[in-house]
């Protein structure tokens, strides 16, 4: 024991303000074949991540064929003109690499990652699965059954149930009215012909992009991509469908009965914004202080003040069209009504009162400060860069967003809250013991009849 305290523990150590970290340099070029290459060098660790972004996602799922886009994406690496699925998987995995394919609402993705020494093989593999898939009937059948098994497995997952019911209520009769994976019936209805026609119509287009990051030379990636993808087929881009969900008359509540559930899963929200909405940066700051971080109003209220939950959060999910704004939490069932009132109260408070200077400052500094954490890995950079090509954003989108967030004022927050938060017309989904829940929601809104 030194006996001498050399530090003053009674005061918060101060330091200079957060420095704004710049997004690392990257190249972005459109090759003569139509493919756009976006690449960033991150040389610290000998790993690379490369992703093909194919324009065409679940927003184009045809009626009665929900889940088609994700099924098509899943089929890309199930066999090509060169190799069957087993041979392909074995050779990728033996090199220590991975290969995955997926789709979201806006686009489809094929991604590979591995040791930097294998980057050329990685690029060839991406070209092979994107341009020469054969969609073998036997693998199609298997994958469709696998997806159905996944869906069956989800029936007892309260969070998945809540998400599904919330999606169906909020997006009824729009392109977003289903789960990405589809449902048992739609998967049953999809044929291999649906898969090949969706692929030809939406994925094999000339406006695809290659996004690469890691221990690589961006110029070399561009050169080799030019050779490998020289014969990218031409096709037309399909405009995203218009998504305008209808707001309910008042608060609409769906109770999903799980009689012996130990807890209640809650979703509270309504339509949010598009990725292209000009209010995006203001809403990022707004959401951060509302429910986007541990010290947000909603989490401190529900968790720290009331002990109702292990954690509560809110977010604006951004897509081409308006994605959901949703507050999510799992609460002790006897507090589901009280928790809902608290959440609606927090939304109202933000519409009625200016936030404090300190709260605004905290939220902005938080968002600026954590920005570089998501720039550390090759995967991180690919995640960020893919947004530029999916949504056709300018190269300085990240800088602009940071700049805009720094400029947000209390008045901006209030105006945005009034424009984008609508607690009086919210959808509420509660998955839990219905008998115990029903009386708690009395007076909060209209409980929708079961099965409606």
């Amino acid at each position, binding site marked *: *024991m*030194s006996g*001498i305290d*050399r530090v003053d*523990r009674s005061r*918060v*150590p101060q*330091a200079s303000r*957060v*420095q704004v*970290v710049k997004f690392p340099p990257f190249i972005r070029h459109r090759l003569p074949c139509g493919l756009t290459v976006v690449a960033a060098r991150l040389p610290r*660790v*000998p*790993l690379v991540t490369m992703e093909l972004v194919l324009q065409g996602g679940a927003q184009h799922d045809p009626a009665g064929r929900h889940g088609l886009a994700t099924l098509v994406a899943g089929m890309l690496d199930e066999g090509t003109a060169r190799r069957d*699925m*087993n041979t392909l*998987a*074995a050779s990728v*995995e*033996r*090199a*220590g690499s*991975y290969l995955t394919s997926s789709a979201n609402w806006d686009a489809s993705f094929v991604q590979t990652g*591995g*040791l930097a*020494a294998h980057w050329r093989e990685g690029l060839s593999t991406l070209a092979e699965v994107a341009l020469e898939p054969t969609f073998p009937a036997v693998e199609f059948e*298997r994958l469709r059954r*696998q997806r159905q*098994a*996944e869906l*069956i497995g989800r*029936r*007892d*997952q*309260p969070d998945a149930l809540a998400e599904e019911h919330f999606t169906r209520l909020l997006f009824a009769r729009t392109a977003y009215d289903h789960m990405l994976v589809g449902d048992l019936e739609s998967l049953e209805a999809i044929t291999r012909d649906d898969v090949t026609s969706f692929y030809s119509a939406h994925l094999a287009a000339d406006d695809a992009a290659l996004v690469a990051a890691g221990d690589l030379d961006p110029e070399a990636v561009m050169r080799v991509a030019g050779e490998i993808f020289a014969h990218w087929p031409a096709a037309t881009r399909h405009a995203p469908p218009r998504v305008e969900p209808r707001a309910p008359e008042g608060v609409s509540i769906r109770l999903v009965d799980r009689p012996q*559930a130990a*807890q209640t*899963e809650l979703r509270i929200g309504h339509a949010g914004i598009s990725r292209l909405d000009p209010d995006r940066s203001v809403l990022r700051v707004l959401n951060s202080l509302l429910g986007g971080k*541990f*010290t947000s109003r909603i989490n*401190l209220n529900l*968790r*720290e003040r009331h*002990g*109702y*939950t*292990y954690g509560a959060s809110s977010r604006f999910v951004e897509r081409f069209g308006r994605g959901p704004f949703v507050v999510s939490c*799992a609460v*002790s069932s006897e507090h589901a009504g009280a928790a809902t009132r608290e959440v609606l109260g927090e939304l109202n408070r933000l519409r009625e009162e200016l936030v404090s200077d300190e709260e605004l*400052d*905290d939220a902005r*500094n*938080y968002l600026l*400060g*954590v*920005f*570089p*954490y998501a720039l*550390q*890995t090759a995967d991180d950079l690919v995640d960020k860069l893919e947004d530029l090509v999916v949504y056709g954003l300018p190269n300085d989108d990240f800088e602009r967003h940071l700049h805009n967030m720094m400029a947000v004022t209390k008045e901006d927050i209030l105006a945005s809250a009034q424009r984008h938060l609508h607690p009086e017309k919210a959808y509420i989904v509660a998955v839990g013991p219905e008998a115990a829940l029903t009386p708690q929601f009395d007076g909060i809104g209209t409980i929708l009849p079961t099965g409606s």
Partner: protein
Amino acid sequence: MPATSVTPEIPFREYRLANGLRLVLHRDRTLPLVAINLWYHVGSRHELPGRTGLAHLFEHMLFQGSEHVGTNDHFRYVQQVGGVANGSTWYDRTNYHETLPAQHLDLGLWLESDRMGFLLPALTQEKLDNQRDVVMNERRQRVDNQPYGRAFERLHELLYAPGHPYRWPVIGSMEDIAAATLDEVRDFFRVYYSPDNAVLTLAGDFDLSEAQDRVEAWFGDLATGPVRPVLATPPAAIEGERRDEISDRVQLPRVYLAWEGPSYGTDAWYAGSLLCVALGSGKSSPLYSDLVLGRQLAKDVSAFIFPTELGATTAIVATARPGVSAADLEHALDEHIERAAAAELPGPDFERARNQLLRSAFAGIETVESKAEQLSQFATYFGNPGFLQRELSAYAETSPEAARQFAKRYWRRDRRTALTVVPETRP
């Protein structure tokens, strides 16, 4: 033959303060960040039956303020400068970490040293009650309200003999959490949350000697803890096969086959770990390619071994496809287990496993957070922050024959626990 001549490594400097605190420093100036990572060598295995869940409850209490830090201010101070913070609890250890803009190193050190040295004056019944409610909701959310959520607790109850500290769940039982008194919580803190039972790692953008001085300034005068009690040696593994079937709100049966394996860090552990990756990781692995893709008996399958100190749970877990019975699935798993014990797996499976492990090792040194976490982990368990090199060479030197020996010695039918979770019959 590795595809690259570079090997993953985390250069470090190590110091020990007079009060016993072990300090590990790793400099990385790529971004203006610092990761602060503090491991206490206390986990659920240091609890006593009837008072389970204390270590985890403590993780919550450590975010409730200390003498100079107000309730909820820990997260507030960290987040308002653009930092992130969290903690986690496991069988053998508890960890606390912050990542901050580099210039805020002092803030992190202040917060961590204050709760190490000055927690008790701020510990109140009210805070304890509130966090007890939060923890009970955490348990409901993660365990009680999740399909298959209680399977692991039952598995460990069957797998470990009475008196073995891995027999109870890390999060504890509802009864014990409800019963914990303020005095018990205080005593637990006094015994285990002292500088001589902790490793502090800093990774990021700082000057080495300056960082060492700052740590000395904040932590140097914290008192060494009392002598920690010698815990009873865990009883020997149970002989004979144990079986159970539990019903749950699930749609598809799931089969768990589990064994008590060797401790983390031993040659046998690495043989087991390599075997698990070779057998079950990736679409082209024997388990996945046969059970999920080929015969289509399973929706998913995995094989693993926990990195724990007093032996380690090693298990193979698979969920049935609709229409497939637990018994058929178990039988198919048995075939793979017997094969792994009878003959070496094919060379390509090991090549895949080694290269996958190499890739994960590189992925593990991409961020300052994960580098700090590994240095703390190795220093805590093996007294050597540089144990990563030993780990990588253990993987490189493990032969297919050693992996076969592992299967033969540990994955024995007469030592195993077989648990199936089946759908409850509903009216």
